[in-house]
């Protein structure tokens, strides 16, 4: 023991003293960033830490989070669903049209919108699994197609209460009051938390989740272990599309109408949230809790900056910079073994 200690004292090279803190930052960078931001904003803007503002932040990230969780599932199989924004738009258009054009009841309208979004998932899966187009390209094509479908269906993109149908016949449908509740607090926050919790449980604690990660890690070895890889990849895109559509439905509840490419703006924040989330707690894999944390980071930042009266047109500069920093904390010095 003695001799060993002596020998260890005169090494040529030592493990860098920075190794441990660096690993810590790699693993917890997002959380540190969120805390730092909160402290900063709390000091700079007194109203920031009020309970109403905190609820406000949580509400503002709900839709992004729901959509980003779907994307997270597609990322687990080493896929990438770029069509989530368009799918959200489509669901928004569909559900509003069911109310305004056809006066359908709330439950039926939502169910129908989600069901039709399944079509998007199956189309994606067909392109990726059967035709074997790489995920990113396939869903890019779908993104355009679905955006176009939504615009064509609505005759230009927007529907609101009182607007006539495409053929000119007047409409009497309205948005039901209970549907509008969906985007009010606390329901919207509860819905988000349910989505996060169930996908977390699904990915982390069920056989299916394990399979999804395995396929993402090594599709060949997974297949040779007897896992039906194509079925699971399809499943991943189904979950992704369903959650995107759910996000679109909540969005419809919030804005009370269908708008041109309303869901498109959620794609990039969702991608950012899911990517930031991959590094959460050193998992190095897309995961539901991480995605929620990623979305929170973006939400806190946006809210705080607005409260500090940073002009809206400059927001993106800071948001982009923070995204780069958050990613840097994960990827910097992460060496390959």
């Amino acid at each position: 023991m003695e001799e060993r200690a002596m020998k260890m004292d005169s090494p040529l090279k030592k493990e860098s003293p920075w190794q441990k803190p660096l690993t810590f930052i790699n693993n917890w960078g997002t959380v540190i960033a969120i805390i730092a931001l909160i402290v900063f904003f709390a000091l700079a803007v007194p109203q920031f830490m009020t309970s109403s503002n905190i609820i406000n932040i949580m509400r503002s990230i709900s839709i992004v989070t729901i959509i980003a969780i779907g994307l997270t599932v597609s990322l687990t199989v080493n896929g990438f669903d770029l069509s989530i924004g368009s799918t959200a738009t489509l669901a928004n258009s569909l559900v509003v049209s069911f109310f305004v054009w056809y006066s359908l009841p709330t439950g039926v309208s939502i169910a129908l919108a989600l069901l039709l979004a399944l079509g998007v998932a199956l189309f994606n899966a067909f392109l990726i699994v059967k035709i074997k187009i790489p995920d990113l390209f396939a869903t890019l094509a779908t993104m355009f197609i679905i955006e176009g479908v939504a615009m064509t269906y609505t005759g230009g993109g927007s529907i609101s209460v009182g607007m006539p149908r495409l053929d000119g016949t007047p409409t009497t449908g309205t948005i039901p009051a209970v549907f509008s509740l969906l985007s009010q607090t606390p329901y919207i926050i509860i819905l988000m938390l349910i989505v996060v919790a169930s996908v977390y449980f699904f990915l982390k604690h069920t056989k299916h989740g394990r399979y999804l990660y395995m396929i993402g890690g090594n599709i060949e070895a997974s297949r040779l272990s007897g896992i039906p890889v194509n079925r699971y990849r399809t499943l991943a895109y189904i979950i992704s599309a369903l959650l995107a559509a759910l996000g679109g439905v909540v969005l419809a509840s919030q804005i009370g109408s269908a708008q041109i490419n309303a869901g498109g703006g959620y794609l990039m924040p969702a991608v950012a949230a899911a990517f930031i989330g991959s590094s959460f707690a050193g998992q190095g894999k897309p995961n539901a809790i991480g995605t929620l944390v990623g979305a929170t980071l973006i939400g806190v930042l946006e809210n705080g900056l607005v409260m500090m009266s940073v002009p809206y047109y400059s927001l993106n500069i800071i948001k982009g910079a923070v995204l780069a920093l958050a990613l840097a904390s994960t990827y910097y010095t992460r060496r390959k073994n």
Partner: protein
Amino acid sequence: MTTLDMQDISIEFPGVKALQHVDFSMKSGEIRALIGANGAGKSTLMKVLSGAYTHYTGQVFLDGQLLDIQSPRDAKKYGIDIVYQEVDTALIPYLDVAENIMLDEMVNEMSGKALVSWKNLHKKAGETLARLNVNIDTRKRVNQLSLAEKQLVLIARAIVHERKFLILDEPTAPLSNRETAELFRIVRELSVNQGLGIIFISHRLPELFEICETISIMKDGKMITTETVSDLTQKKVIELMLGKSFNEEHQKHQVPIGNTYLKIDNLTDEAQFLKNVSLEVREHDIVGIAGLVGAGKTELCKAIFGENPLQSGTIYLKDKQVRNQSPTHAVKNGFALVPEERRKEGVLVDEPVYANLTAASLRKFTLPFSVLKPERERERARKIIASLGIKTPSENQKVALLSGGNQQKVAVGKWLLTDAEILIFDEPTKGVDVGAKGDIFDLITSLAEEGKGIIYASSELNEILNITDRIYVMYDGKIVKELKTQNTNEEEILFYSTGGR
């Protein structure tokens, strides 16, 4: 002549003391064997020398001068280069042979120049290959090469510049006898005529005795001894590396062979590589598939397992026809396959050991609604780890961090938790040390005794002779001969596997 001297090298990974005060020295022009059980630290020691790890303690001297090796580039600068255990990870598949050979050059020595001179590139690559006396078209894309050729490309890359020491980490594991002989010729050429010091890692003892002058033996992260080959016997080497005496002859119990279990009738695959293959596996039966590299053993294994589509032919399991349209169906029907290329097909390197071991039997570890029982998984995994002697700090270690041979054990262990009735092994002992090879043999024998049907494909004739009851010899996608193991020998198998009739 140059002297290489590594002194008091230690290195640790979380939970593993991979090297403990290791000394290693040799001279250029020498061919040195480095041997030790799986996980003994061979690859790690060589990674230290070639600049892949920098968090070690200890010193490396070249001709008495202290080296400061911080990166592979530094090591190359000092004239030290390595050809890694996993060749595919070091090549860029869609570039051609010349580009791959000249990769370091293009990356490191082009400062100031932006244009690639293709003519020079091919000329220089061609010259390097000529130095090795091998004939590969420098314009061929690397993904069209055989494994052996890929390895030669890597060796060529290593010697583009003048080198003093070249490390070959298990270069012969994927090679056929003929290719091994060719590699030996090149190794001798490099050491005798060009004065390189070669460090040669392998688990095949006979070949070490054939090509090396001295052997360094490692065990549990320590250097045990270095001796000249003439002072050693294979038995002695095994004793030193395992720390116990070991009988390489495998003991088989006599079990009566039962009824026909698996019957394969006139199988032809869609690629038409296999031609009308028929064979039979009986209860308690270990059936060997012998043949040279490229004879179609792997294709046959994959065709039975549903990975390669069939054109015609039928498979009967206990007289009932089964259709293995995909590996998923095959596993449901009770088949298991330990594939040849472990990193690509056998293990999930980013997942922990326990998740790899339960990958094919996850259904057994679930509550209702497919909820997992990870504690139960870990518990079963620990049993397999113990019974196969997988060297890992815990069942939670990522497979990527295990040594090559231990990864192979994980690929085998995965199927022990399934209810497979027919187990197909495709070169299962690749990269596995002698001791572990014995463990795997024992395991396969006991599976057969339990009544399972075993198909064992290998180009290692001594293994086939050691473990099987019957042998089918393949040549050019066909089964050319069926032999009873008791009544045959290497010469006879070799005769048929080279197309003799």
